[in-house]
Structure formats: structure tokens, C-alpha cells
């Protein structure tokens, strides 16, 4: 897996949410869960052609989708924030891949800091790290995703795994990965995954 550049804590709502098909009225974009920026408040530049494509998919649909059918506002996408997940870096990486002249299969990873506007307690911090992996190739299936996850977790010493259907705005199908914790004697969630929406 090749490491993706993730050295930007500040991200625009566009890359963090809109390009990942997260609707503009989604609760996660609320003041409560995301750190929005006072200064710089708005991203000066958004990729022009791509932005209009994203607008169309949200408001009317496209690529086989019905879309969300609401009025998509570019001002909302410009709002700067501290990224809530490293998937925004994955989106950027995939965008760069798409602009390559010839498609080459890739495997990307990153391990970096993310920020969520939460009160601190025993199990929550406002800043924490995420491990993210992306595989792009022709003919990949859900079975492949499960295979990679199993290998990854086995290397970490976690081998008892179960997969549960889940929901992410940007992946469909989505799966939460659960592992049996011997100490707590129950299944705990160890990861989230999915196949990116077309």
C-alpha cells in the first residue's frame, strides 16, 4: 500500500463532505460534531469542473443514481473545517488518480489525525488518529474487501471477525467490522468499511 499525503488538517466542506456524497443538511455537518473555522472561513478554490459534477449528483442524480434532490449550495461547500475523517484525503487521492492519463490499479493508505467537536471523556477525544486504506482496481468485490480486512486485522492479532451491514453516505455496500474481545466477553466494533458509490 502506498502512503497518501494527508498533511492538511484544514479541509473544505467540499472534500470532507460534498465530494463524499454527504448531503448538506446531514447532522454530522452540524456545529455540534464538526470544528468549523473562523479564519480562514472559506476555501478560496474548489476544482471547477468537478464541483459542478458534485452539485449535479446531489441535486439531480447522475451515474445511475437518483441523487438527494435538494438545492445544493456552493457556499456550504466552501466552508472550511478541521477534517472529521481522513477519507477526505482519500477523495483527493482518487481525484488525482482519475486525472491520470491511463488508469493504474492502486492501493493507498494513511494514518493521521482527525478532529471531532466532542466533549472529552474516557472514550472520546477531540483529536484522534485514523487508519485508512483504499484499493482501486477493476472487478473488485465485497469479498475482496472482507479478505483484505481479515488479513489486516489478523496481522494486528485480531482474528475473530464478523461483518455487519452498515450505512455510510459515500459507500454502498457498507460494513462494520466486529471482533470478539476476550476481556470484555463481547463483540466490539473495530472498523468501518465499504465499496465507494459509483
Amino acid at each position: 500500500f502506498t502512503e497518501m499525503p494527508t498533511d492538511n488538517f484544514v479541509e473544505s466542506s467540499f472534500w470532507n463532505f460534498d465530494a463524499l456524497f454527504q448531503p448538506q443538511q446531514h447532522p454530522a455537518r452540524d456545529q455540534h460534531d464538526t470544528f468549523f473555522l473562523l479564519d480562514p472561513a472559506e476555501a478560496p478554490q474548489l476544482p471547477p469542473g468537478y464541483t459542478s459534477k458534485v452539485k449535479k449528483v446531489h441535486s439531480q442524480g447522475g451515474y445511475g443514481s437518483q441523487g438527494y434532490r435538494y438545492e445544493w449550495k456552493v457556499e456550504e461547500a466552501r466552508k472550511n473545517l478541521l477534517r472529521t475523517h481522513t477519507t477526505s484525503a482519500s477523495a483527493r487521492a482518487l481525484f488525482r488518480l482519475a486525472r491520470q492519463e491511463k488508469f493504474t490499479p492502486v492501493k493507498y493508505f494513511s494514518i493521521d489525525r482527525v478532529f471531532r467537536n466532542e466533549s472529552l471523556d474516557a472514550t472520546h477525544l477531540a483529536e484522534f488518529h485514523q487508519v485508512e486504506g483504499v484499493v482501486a482496481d477493476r472487478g473488485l468485490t465485497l469479498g475482496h474487501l472482507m479478505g483484505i480486512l481479515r488479513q489486516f486485522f489478523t496481522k494486528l492479532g485480531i482474528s475473530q471477525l464478523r461483518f455487519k451491514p452498515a450505512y455510510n453516505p459515500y459507500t454502498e455496500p457498507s460494513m462494520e467490522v466486529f471482533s470478539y474481545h476476550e476481556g470484555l466477553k463481547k463483540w466490539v466494533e473495530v472498523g468501518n468499511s465499504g465499496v465507494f458509490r459509483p
Partner: protein
Amino acid sequence: DEEFDELCFEFGLELDEITSEKDIISKEKGQEKAKGASDVILYKIDVPANRYDLLCLEGLVRGLQVFKERINLPRYEKIIPAEGEGQRLIITEQTAQIRPHAVAAVLRNITFTKERYDSFIDLQEKLHQNICRKRALVAIGTHDLDTISGPFTFTAKAPSEIKFKPLNQSQEYTASQIMDLYRTDSHLRHYLHLIENKPRYPVIYDSNGVVLSMPPIINGDHTKISLNTRNVFIECTGTDITKAKIVLDVIVTMFSEYCEKPFTVEAAEVVYPNGKTHIYPELAYRTEKVKPEHINKKIGISETPSSLAKLLTRMCLKSHVIGNGNHLEVEIPPTRADIIHACDIVEDAAIAYGYNNIQMVIPKTYTIANQLPLNKLTELLRLDLAAAGFTEALTFALCSQEDVADKLGMDISATNAVRIANPKTAEFQVARTTLLPGLLKTIAANRKMPLPLKLFEISDIVVKDPNTDVGARNYRHLCAIYYSKSPGFEIIHGLLDRVMQLLEVPPNEENGYTIKASEASAFFPGRCAEVFAKGQSIGKLGVIHPDVITKFELTMPCSALEINIEPFV
């Protein structure tokens, strides 16, 4: 219980907790108060955010029963009443400014019991919180149709002109009085701001001037639903027409089960200001054609088209094979507003097949792996700094304004810092522009450790940068501090020399690094130097100013080094 847990897991729900009313009250208020509370087992189930049809018991049970093939998915029908007999909701142009859209429907001859009634109210609340975004996008009002008579008018009037008896109150109030009345209500006060400062408030009347409701705040008492209600008029008003339609579809499909003619809904007509009319609820059934081989390929299984059709039907997506077996026609019912693309259908097929039944394979993708050069350099330096006797620290990237400015003797505007708009505490006001405060705070928290304390951190700082597409960027800094009875300037200087040696940067001006004496507010005057390399200033080192030391609640001398390592990648 385990069986139900398994079922939920397979279906995609999370069985959060198995408890009872008694347990809940015990935990919150103590065992005394719990005496007499119900012992009946309650399941707390977590429903995914995009499945509005599973938000009530009726929908959940229906979904699970179809999944287990115990029942067939009911067919939801809308009945269009004869000309002139149906209910009409007329929207006037005044609503355009504040709440332009409305949809309506009627549930005829419905029978309520206490559980069904509670479930009905509960579903409205859940929808309000979820898809309606706390009533901002859509507000639901349900009324006893026998207490009012249509046609109904949805308009907007000045607050002083609206007067009615709100739900469960004993007297009439004007709209402005209602605002004041509910200002302290723990539930309703959160919605007041949606209409409070507008010149006109939305209101729905019947043909006799009886107020049905003032969305999104409260319904009128006159039309309140009781266990004896037989006919229900439902109206959803809002700013997003797509969501209003979805909400209406969900409510009527869920509760039409209890109508005399089960799963039938009586349509209502909505008249727009421009004269156009529309029949609601839409209850649209959409069909999508998918290729069975496409589904098989995406999941990694190989099922026959007819078994795929069976799997999808179990997920409430009635399907059958068409053509000569290479297409499936999938019917998407109005309860599944979350299906917007073929990939959603693929996911449902996978869920019905059972995620854990899918064979796990490794992709045959061959790629050559690379570490990002900046991270590789960081890792190497970390090892060597630790070898030099310094301990690594990992500190927060967010801090207070004082940490990066006042405590270091600088003005905040000079720091070019990125500022947060909505911090929960003062500790997260800005993104750090220097690693120094983090390390100083770490020392302050570890004063009891034996001296000397030698810490380092190699991590990102954030500054504003108008040249990037978002307006800010990260720089990878290396910061080391030495805290002891004597400042240890020579030790920090030695560390810089060691780092440069590792980076193979010679100590001369033309093609290497040099240090020149300089001044900085955070450092002791006369004991501060600026580091130059690769033609630019990359950082500073020196003895920390006593003021700074005191402001960070420390008592011993301290010297520090901070440089940007990106030029060396």
C-alpha cells in the same frame, strides 16, 4: 435474546441494550423511584440513519418478517376519492417566504390502541429529529378529521393575527404569547427560532377558521387525536419538498396497517398558489432493472437470477426474473426512499445473502508500495532523536489562543493562526502554529519526574496560506526542549548539530546551515539564534524567556529548538 441479536446483526441493526423500564429508572434516579415501574423487557435498537421505515415498531417488525419470509410485503394503495369528496389543502402565496411546501393525506377508519397511539406519536418525533432536521426541513401535524371540515388553508399571518388554544392548554393565546409560553418548555423551545423573527408565522385553518396547527411549533388542541379517533388528517409542511413527500409516505405506509381496509391511504389534493393541483401521497413504486451478473460480480458470489430475486424480495424489494434470465426487475416500494442507485440494491442483496457467508478473497492487484517521503524522514528522525536521549511526546494540535500568542509574548495576529469558529472549550480555539506550547504543557504536567526533562516532538503545525486551495496548510516541525537546573543551551545546540549531521547538511553558509544571533519574544534576549539552511530561515533555538516559563507554570530554566524539516525531504 441471542437469536434476536443475531437477527439484528444480519439485518444491519444493532441491538444496543436489553433493559426494562425499571432498569432505566434505576440507573437514572435510583432504585427507590423504580419501584412499580414496568419489568417488561425493552430492546434498544440502533437503526441506520437512512432507513426511515424502520423507525417505528410497525416498520421494524414488518421488515424483519419479510426478511424471515414470514409474510409478503404488503402493497400500499392510495384511494382517490370521488370528485368533490376528497380533502383539499390550499396553499396561499404568503407561505412562500417562510415555509413554501406542504403535502397531505388521510387515514380512513383507523383503530388506535394505547400502544399504536404511542407508536404514532413516537414515529413523528423520530422523523422530526432525523430526516426533518429538528423540524427545520419538515414539520408533521396529525389531526382528528372528524373535529374539522375542509377545505383547509395553509397560509402565513402576522403573529398578532393568529389566536388559538394550543395542544393541552386550557385557554386561547395569540401567536406571540405562544412563543413566550413555550420559551421555557424543554422540548419546544428549540424550535421557536425557526419562525420567531419572521414577519409572518405559518398557520393552517379549516373552512370554519379553526386552527389545525402553527407549524413547526405546535398543533391546536381542537384537533388533537385520541384513542377514539377514527379518521386522521396528516399534513407535512416544510422547506424541502422531497423530504416532505418521503415523510408523508413513511407515516401513511406504516400506520395504514390499522385502517379498516389495511394498507390503503385516502389521497388528498394540494392546491398551489398558481392554481396547479397535486394529489398526495405519491406512494410511488419505482422499478429498476439490474443485471444478476452485475450483482454477483460486485459482491463476489454466484447466485442464480431466481435466487437473487428471492433475496431481494426478502429485503422488501419485490423482484422477478425477466427476459431470458439476464435481467431482474426490482420494484422499489415507497418505504425504501434510501434506494437511490443500483449499488443500494446490490447492498440489499448482499445483506440477504448474509455478509458473513461471502467468501473472503485477496485482490490480485499488484502494486508497488511507497512510504510518503516526508513521513519516512519523520520516522527516521524520531528514532535518532530518541537515541540522542530525548523522549517523544504526542500533543494536541488544537490549543488556546494564549498558548500560541500571549504566553509566548506575541500578538495573535502576528501568528497567522487558523482559528476555530465553534470550540467547545477554550482549549480548542486555534490550531497550533508552533510545537513549543504543547511540549511546555507536557513538562508542566510532569514536574514530578526526575530532571533533566528532555522532550521532542516531530509533528504538524498549521498556518494560514492564501496559496493553497483551502487557505491553510500544514508544516512538519521538529521541536525539542531541555528543562533542568541549568538551561542547557549547549545541549540543544548539540542536538541541532546532530540533526544536521544526520540530514547530511554541512555547517557552512553556502550549501549548508548556519545560525545567526536574533531576537524573539519567546526567547531570552542575547540567548536566541535563528537557523538558516537551504537559503531560508527554518527555525529558532535558544534559552526560553523566564516570562514564558512562568506563564506555562514552570520554575526551572529551559532551552528549546524548533525547525521546519520540510526543506530536507
